[in-house]
C-alpha cells in the first residue's frame, strides 16, 4: 500500500499542476478551439431563441389585431385566432377581451342561440309548458300572443306626458 500521506501529496501535485497545463490556454482558461466551440453553441442557441421569440410575438400581434391581412400574406395560418380576432377587429380592446372571456366566437354563437330560443319560448310558450305552469300556479295562462304587452316604455311615457 502506498502511504496515505504519499497519496495525498500526489493529489496535491495533481491539483497544482493544472496551472502549467493551462499555459497554452486562452483568456477563458481553455484550449482556443474549445472556447470557440462552446461560445459558438451559446451564440447559436441565443440567436435561435431570439428568432423564435420574434416569431411568437408576431403571431400574437397578428392574433390581437385581426389576422386576415397576415393570413392572406401567408404569415399566419388560416383560421389562426378564430373566435378571438373577430370581435377585436370590429370593436377594439373591450369587445375583444369580452369575447375571449366568454370563450370566443363559438361560445358567443351558442349564447345568442339560447337567447333567441328563450325569447321565443316566452312569446309562444308550448302547450306542455303552459299546462305545467297552470298546475304550478293554479291559474290560467294564455297563449294568445296578442296579450303580450307590446307597448314600450317610451309609449307609456308619451301617453303620460
Amino acid at each position: 500500500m502506498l502511504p496515505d500521506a504519499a497519496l495525498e501529496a500526489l493529489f496535491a501535485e495533481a491539483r497544482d499542476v493544472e496551472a502549467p497545463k493551462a499555459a497554452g490556454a486562452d483568456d477563458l482558461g481553455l484550449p482556443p478551439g474549445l472556447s470557440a466551440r462552446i461560445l459558438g453553441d451559446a451564440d447559436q442557441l441565443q440567436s435561435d431563441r431570439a428568432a423564435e421569440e420574434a416569431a411568437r410575438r408576431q403571431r400574437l400581434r397578428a392574433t390581437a389585431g385581426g389576422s386576415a391581412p397576415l393570413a392572406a400574406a401567408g404569415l399566419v395560418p388560416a383560421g389562426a385566432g378564430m373566435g378571438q380576432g373577430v370581435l377585436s377587429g370590429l370593436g377594439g380592446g373591450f369587445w375583444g377581451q369580452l369575447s375571449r372571456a366568454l370563450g370566443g366566437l363559438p361560445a358567443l354563437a351558442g349564447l345568442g342561440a339560447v337567447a333567441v330560443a328563450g325569447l321565443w319560448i316566452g312569446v309562444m310558450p308550448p302547450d306542455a309548458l303552459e299546462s305545467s305552469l297552470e298546475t304550478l300556479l293554479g291559474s290560467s295562462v294564455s297563449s294568445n300572443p296578442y296579450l303580450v304587452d307590446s307597448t314600450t316604455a317610451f309609449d307609456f311615457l308619451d301617453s303620460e306626458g
Partner: protein
Amino acid sequence: MQQMALDDPDAIPDDALLVLYANGDGQASRLLTARLAPRVLSQAQRMLGDRAEAEDVAQEAMLRLWRIAPDWRRGEAKVSTWLYRVTANLCTDRLRRRRGGAGLDDLPEPEDPSAPVEETLQAQARLDALQRALNQLPDRQRQAVVLRHLEGLGNPEIAEILEISTEAVESLTARGKRALSRLLAARREELGYHDD
C-alpha cells in the same frame, strides 16, 4: 443583443448570469464559460484520461447548460453542482460505451506503462501514473475520488452531484483511495517514494 450594464461582472452569481444569458445578454455566456468550463474540462479529463474526449464532454455539458438556461429556477441548485453532475453522467456514458467496444487494456495510456521511470520522475509522469490508476477504478469510485481529492469539493456537494448520501460518498472515496494506494504501491519506487 443586450449588453450587461453591471460594473463588476465577477460579483454576479452564476445563476444570475444564466438568467442574463437566457434574456439575450451577449457577455454572459463568455463569463460563464470562463468560470465553469475549465472545471468541467478538468473533471472530464480526470474521469476519461483522454484530452480530446474530455473536450467533447466539456462542449456537450456547456451546451446542456445553454439549453436549460430559459427554464433555470434560481435558488434550487447551484449551477456548478448541476454542471458537475451533467459532466459526471456524460463521462459515465462514455466509459460504458468504451467498455462495450473495447477492453480495459484499450484505455488511453499517456505513456507506455512498461517503460522504466527515472528516479527523478517528472511531475507529468507522476500524474500519468495517477491517471492510469484512476482509470482502473470503478466509475463511481473514480467520480468520488476525482471530485473530492482533485476538484476539491466537499462531501455534501459531491453527494448532490452523484445523487447519493454523504455517507455513501465517504465510503466511495475511502474505497477509491485504498484501491489507488494498492495500484500505485507497485510503482512507489518509480514515483519516488522510498521505504525508510
